[in-house]
């Protein structure tokens, strides 16, 4: 027997009504009323005879909440006073259930006594949760009253256990969806910001002694999602909850705009769920977790406090007067990897929306933002800035990609989320947590300014708001305009523009070029121009591919990316000393450039070359010109002088004698015999910064060394040697000679434990054996010095017998 005999409850009539419903909530109520009719009718006709008393039908879960979607399961509790005793009861129950199934209802039923319902079972917490929405349907009302009387006491006694389990289940479910709402094809039931999150908010509120006040924004979001899920069920003809691209087109003639509306509602629900879980967890955390959180609270300072592992402002009202407070707050988040509290996030969002938060003048915003982007957890800070709307306020281009769905078979996330994930991949490299990515971690540590990489990633896809075609160029234009307004120095801006415009280049090389073909390496090297830009672009490509979806960066692709980097690296180091500038027409500028490596033009802007030429004019009159400036936190020494043996070593010795730590060296010589050497160094004791006149004293000393009026050995004599690290932590020195890498020089690569005056000692050793340093590249990676010298001996390559002697001497210098 089936229930379809009752025409008002036939499945056909339900479907017809559903199509007509526009309002999701009324549709659900209507569907619930219809199913109530089917179930009670079946009970009266098939079950009541076998159970004159001692049986009650109770709607639980979504059915209990009156939220039945067209193809939802019907959660039904058959409450009995004792276990089923007679065959008549069992047969009656069987016929009752079968008839409902035959009536096209997908039942999810259980038969339980009151004692079973009020006993907490850790392996079936779902039962306890479903009882939070219990609703009497028909049968023995006295029996249901008994259950209803006992449930509040049961929930009071088990509140902590149920809430804890609920929080764990929510976090596990969010993790399955990568903790983001921003999927291109979101699951509107189980995904973050979906209906399950809404249920969690409701359940945890019911478990609290004083439930929170209703939130109208949450009600609106719920109504929206109800309509969407009802439509999905109706269209698919089954319990389908994924908002596929096809379904998005069904929803609106402009799916991209409609999806933004969808994400706006999903975000409201997601935030509410996170806030509720966060509040709940604060009350539930175990002793060990609490201890850890208490420890983290010691990071608090005079304006920022850490409470229960969340960052809060001590005086939120300062947001409206202190222009740099927001940046210090997000710098704190990025430095310590602790997220903002939901409440602080809300306060900032309100201030940003009302445009009442204080911000620095646009021309000074880059320097403030840069400190945030330089932190090891920059992605977390940027997530906070995104959630509060601050990122969109600072960078208007960001708004154009917020919740932007671009259809792509491989991509899993919206454009903004993809961008934030790229930065989290860079953060993972910074922490070096993944040994399979060690080579890329090292590459990142060799970059001069990771903040430039991060800002390039932020901009790399903003052009997608105008479509995929040519988006790299559009993104670069946008980056140029906005970063100029924010006061980014030209030198940095040009790098960022380059990275954004060329962010697809290495992927294209991997996919369509033979990596073993020398022409591929030449092409790549020509495009990136410098090793620094090659590193940035490789890391940008790494992050971009990794953020497409969790499986996109396969070991295979990672290897291909590494080989592309190696090809470019080899080519750029090979041509350092061979390709020289040959000016066509002699003039003042050509005289200066003639004979410099081609790399000089690539690595210096027009204004820098002009400044070098001014130094050269000064040097022609005085014999040597010296400039010392501080840029981007590091000191830069530039000298122009006539070349002579041992000059570079003397220069390095002079700088080292002041206790400075040389981190980068470039040496150039032109055909007229002038040298241009530049050293970037750190001032660990802040000597130059804190003592007015010291920079000038160093300048005078360097001048004397250049003119041969100062003995560098004497300067360094008596300086205390730093203590070497323990043997286990010490870097073993290595010296390699390569006569093939260059047409005219021998390439000497030295890896050693860094120490003051190391470069001076190495350079002096070369000079002592009559070798000339043509080109030098110095990198310092934490305590590891990686120095590459292009060296000649009597205008040719270093002969093998001298290589052997030099190797011993250099190793001794490294180890001393």
């Amino acid at each position, binding site marked *: 027997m089936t229930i379809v005999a009752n025409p008002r409850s036939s499945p056909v009539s339900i479907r017809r009504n559903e199509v007509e419903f526009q309002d999701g909530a009324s549709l659900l109520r209507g569907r619930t009323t219809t199913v109530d009719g089917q179930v009670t009718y079946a009970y009266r006709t098939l079950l009541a005879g076998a159970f004159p008393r001692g049986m009650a039908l109770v709607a639980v879960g979504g059915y209990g909440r009156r939220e039945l979607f067209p193809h939802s399961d019907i959660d039904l509790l058959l409450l009995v006073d004792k276990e089923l005793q007679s065959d008549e009861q069992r047969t009656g129950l069987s016929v009752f259930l079968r008839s409902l199934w035959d009536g096209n209802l997908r039942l999810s039923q259980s038969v339980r006594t009151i004692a079973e319902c009020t006993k907490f079972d850790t392996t079936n917490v779902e039962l306890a949760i479903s009882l939070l929405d219990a609703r009497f349907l028909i049968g023995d009302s006295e029996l249901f009253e008994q259950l209803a009387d006992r449930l509040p006491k049961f929930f009071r006694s088990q509140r902590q256990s149920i809430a804890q389990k609920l929080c764990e289940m929510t976090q596990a479910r969010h993790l399955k969806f990568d903790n983001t709402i921003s999927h291109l094809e979101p699951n509107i039931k189980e995904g973050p910001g979906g209906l399950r999150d809404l249920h969690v908010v409701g359940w945890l509120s019911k478990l609290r002694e004083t439930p929170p006040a209703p939130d109208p924004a949450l009600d609106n979001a719920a109504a929206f999602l109800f309509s969407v899920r009802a439509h999905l069920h109706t269209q698919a003809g089954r319990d389908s909850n994924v908002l596929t691209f096809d379904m998005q087109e069904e929803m609106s003639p402009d799916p991209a705009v409609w999806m933004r509306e969808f994400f706006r509602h999903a975000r409201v629900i997601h935030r509410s769920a996170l806030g509720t879980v966060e509040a709940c967890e604060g009350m539930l955390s175990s002793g060990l977790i609490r201890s850890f959180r208490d420890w983290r609270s010691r990071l608090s300072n005079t304006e920022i406090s850490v409470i229960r592992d969340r960052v809060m402002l001590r005086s939120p009202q300062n947001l409206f007067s202190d222009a740099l407070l927001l940046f210090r707050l997000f710098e704190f988040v990025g430095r310590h990897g602790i997220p903002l509290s939901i409440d602080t996030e809300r306060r900032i969002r309100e201030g940003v929306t009302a445009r009442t938060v204080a911000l620095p003048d646009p021309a000074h915003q880059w320097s403030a933002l840069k400190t945030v982007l330089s932190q090891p957890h920059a992605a977390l800070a940027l997530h906070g800035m995104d959630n509060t709307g601050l990122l969109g306020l600072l960078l208007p281009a960001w708004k154009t990609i917020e919740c932007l769905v671009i259809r792509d078979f491989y991509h899993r996330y919206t454009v903004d989320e993809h961008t934030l994930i790229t930065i989290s991949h860079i953060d993972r490299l910074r922490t070096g947590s993944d040994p399979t990515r060690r080579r890329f971690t*090292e590459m990142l540590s060799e970059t001069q300014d990771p903040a430039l990489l991060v800002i390039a990633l932020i901009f790399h896809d903003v052009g997608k708001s105008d479509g995929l075609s040519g988006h790299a160029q559009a993104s670069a234009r946008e980056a140029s305009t906005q970063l100029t307004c924010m006061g980014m120095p030209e030198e940095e801006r040009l790098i960022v523009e380059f990275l954004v415009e060329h962010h697809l280049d290495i992927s294209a090389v*991997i*996919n369509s*070029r033979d990596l073993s073909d020398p022409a591929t390496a030449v092409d790549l090297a020509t495009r990136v121009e410098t090793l620094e830009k090659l590193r940035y672009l490789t890391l940008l490509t790494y992050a971009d591919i990794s953020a497409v979806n969790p499986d996109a960066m396969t070991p*295979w692709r990672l290897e291909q990316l590494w*080989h592309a980097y*190696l090809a470019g690296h080899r080519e750029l180091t090979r041509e350092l000393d061979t390709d020289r500038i040959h000016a066509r027409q002699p003039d003042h500028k050509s005289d200066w450039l003639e004979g410099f490596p081609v790399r000089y033009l690539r690595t210096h802007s027009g204004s820098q070359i002009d400044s070098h030429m001014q130094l050269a004019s000064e040097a022609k009159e005085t014999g040597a010109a010296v400039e010392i400036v501080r840029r981007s936190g590091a000191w830069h020494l530039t000298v122009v002088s006539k070349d002579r043996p041992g000059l570079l070593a003397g220069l390095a010795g002079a700088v080292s004698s002041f206790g400075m730590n040389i981190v980068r060296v470039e040496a150039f010589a032109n055909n007229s015999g002038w040298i241009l050497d530049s050293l970037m160094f750190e001032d660990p004791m802040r000597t130059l910064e804190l003592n007015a006149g010291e920079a000038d004293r160093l300048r005078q000393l360097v001048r004397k060394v250049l003119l041969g009026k100062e003995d560098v050995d004497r300067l360094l004599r008596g300086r205390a040697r730093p203590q070497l690290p323990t043997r286990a932590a010490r870097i073993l020195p290595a010296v*390699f000679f390569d006569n093939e890498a260059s047409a005219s020089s021998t390439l000497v690569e030295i890896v050693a434990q860094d120490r003051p005056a190391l470069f001076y000692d190495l350079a002096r050793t070369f000079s002592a054996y009559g070798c000339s340093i043509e080109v030098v590249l110095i990198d310092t990676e934490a305590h590891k010095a*990686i120095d590459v010298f292009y060296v000649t001996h009597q205008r040719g390559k270093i002969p093998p017998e001298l290589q052997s002697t030099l190797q011993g001497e250099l190793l001794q210098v490294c180890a001393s």
Partner: protein
Amino acid sequence: MKKIEAIIQPFKLEEVKEALKNIGIDGMTITEVRGHGRQKGHKEVYRGHEYNVDLLPKIKVEMVLPDLRVEEALKTLAGAARTGNIGDGKIFVFDVAEAIRIRNDDRGESAL
């Protein structure tokens, strides 16, 4: 029916796909693989460390075709994948006993 399995250079994938598409062959399975034949591997030096690159990245292309189309496909595939250098790859051809389209139970060549 025959199954064609080709191991090709990664950078030749787009050309091969395009060439096969031009003769009306769209269906194929692509896998990222690593291996070596006579090309063997090589050593690379970076930052003073030597790396053995003995398994080289390749792409495996698989497709099943009616017997009549096999020769044309092989010629097209080999032509598009060839550079003339060691490491261009190999093509293998197998007999296929049966093909079934899961959606509607079509069998034989009509399932291809």
